[in-house]
């Protein structure tokens, strides 16, 4: 068995390059509403901005300051936290907890000097495919206006994933 070393690099980051710069956004979505809302947008073939990665969690109440701060630390240009509308949370009050966590996160983000516009909380239900697409478009545009995160200049190093593959 030989070991081949491959380097997987994410899409080229071009703050200085020739291609136009696109923001890199992380979306947290709860399993029961927002993630399904994204699905609805997909099934309905709605077009929206593609510059985000989505992480599904069981409930928005799970999204702690640590998740968001880690994303910014690693160079995310924007972070969107989403969950069920009030009264709809699958776990009854998970999204109320999410608000507490979000407020805390926002406090930290402001102190750290990250623009508050890079972070947003939205409620999206499973039926709201259109709303999902609209929010993504709107937020992407907002982050685009803010430009690359000051922390993202170092992100190439962080994104390069070295994998050892048994050949």
């Amino acid at each position: 068995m030989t070991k081949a070393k491959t380097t997987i690099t994410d899409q080229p980051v071009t703050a200085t390059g020739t291609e136009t710069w696109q923001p890199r956004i992380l979306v947290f979505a709860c399993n029961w509403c927002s993630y399904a809302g994204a699905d609805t947008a997909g099934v309905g073939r709605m077009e929206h901005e593609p510059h985000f990665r989505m992480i599904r969690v069981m409930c928005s109440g799970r999204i702690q300051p640590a998740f968001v701060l880690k994303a910014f630390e690693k160079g995310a240009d924007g972070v969107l936290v989403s969950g069920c509308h009030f009264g709809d949370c699958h776990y009854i009050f998970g999204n109320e907890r999410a608000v507490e966590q979000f407020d805390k996160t926002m406090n930290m983000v402001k102190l750290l000097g990250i623009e508050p516009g890079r972070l947003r909380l939205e409620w999206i239900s499973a039926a709201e495919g259109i709303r999902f697409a609209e929010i993504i478009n709107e937020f992407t545009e907002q982050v685009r206006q803010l430009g690359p995160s000051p922390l993202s200049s170092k992100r190439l190093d962080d994104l390069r994933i070295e994998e050892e593959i048994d050949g």
Partner: protein
Amino acid sequence: MAELAAIAQDTRAWACYDCGKCTATCPLVRAGARYSPRRHVLATNQGKRPANSGEGTLFDCLTCKLCDTRCPVGVEYTELVLKLRELAHRDGVEVECPHGGALQSAMRIMAKGEMAQDRLGWLEADMLTEPDEGELFLWTGCTMYYDAFFPEFEMDSIAGTKAAVRLLNKLGIAPVVSPDERCCGHDLLWNGDVKHFEMLARHNVKLVEASGADTLVVPCAECLRTFKRDYGPFFSGKKPRMLHLTEFLSENLDKLPMTNGASQRVTYQDPCRLGRHLGVYDAPRAVLNAVPGLELAEMRHHGSASTCCAGGTWSNCDRYSKQIQVNRLREARQTMAPVMVTACPKCQVHFKCAMQDPNLKDEITIELRDVAEIIAASLE
């Protein structure tokens, strides 16, 4: 192997004669944890690395230094833990992080330093400070972050920082309070993340050096320990005099018009960083005793025998930590003092957390204040 031998040499682990006093002393062990400093010392001497995760491992240590004060042959277990955590971090071990690692992320974001923090929003109109140059630098530490991150404890540790500024103003000093200060990196260092620690250290030392200050006054016990013990190699010229706020105040007691009698009893919690790590026990007591009418009632364990707040480095928090905190708060309540005074914001975070226990709340709740707040209140 050679690395461990060098560590054993530096920390005097080699001198261990297996008496087990460290384990018997350890507050974690007393609270019931399966933890053995002695075994870690022995393993190091045998060229083996203690396990990195699970109960009873390196990252459980409170780094409170109580065992070091009891060791008959002067093994520096706390330093050993610091070095071993560095090796663990190099191998990719991350702390089993309380608070999900949010505080570590905040510190690393500061270390990268691409952002202008908004850390001086608490300054008030009556406070006289200088933004970049002056004779005395007041190192505020990260109290504003703790208050922002722990709203559920109703943290108000910034009150201590504000009091520190006002006290210095009363002495006729407008200290340098810099908007460019960054986390001292204490916790990253104690988590083994030397790389980001060094980034912070370089920046902070440069900042202090550029201010031209010959005195650095620090109200936070952890920041002071870091400046005095860990920033040494980063200073290029003459180091400023580095003092805890209470040390500075105790030198200037005659110039402080403490007229407002406090007529209250307080007890004092020695922060591990200020007490056992730096040997500062008397200054905080001297300034407290100077307040007219104030009575300082010591807890059963005080001075070098103090119990710490059991949350030192954002790397350990479990039922044993909670037990230690509860026991400590019970000791405080036994003094009959309504106020527990401390000299480190992190003590406040951890004791306030323990006070959230719905079953024990009534037995252990006590008002927490920074020593600067008490002194500042006696001036008005």
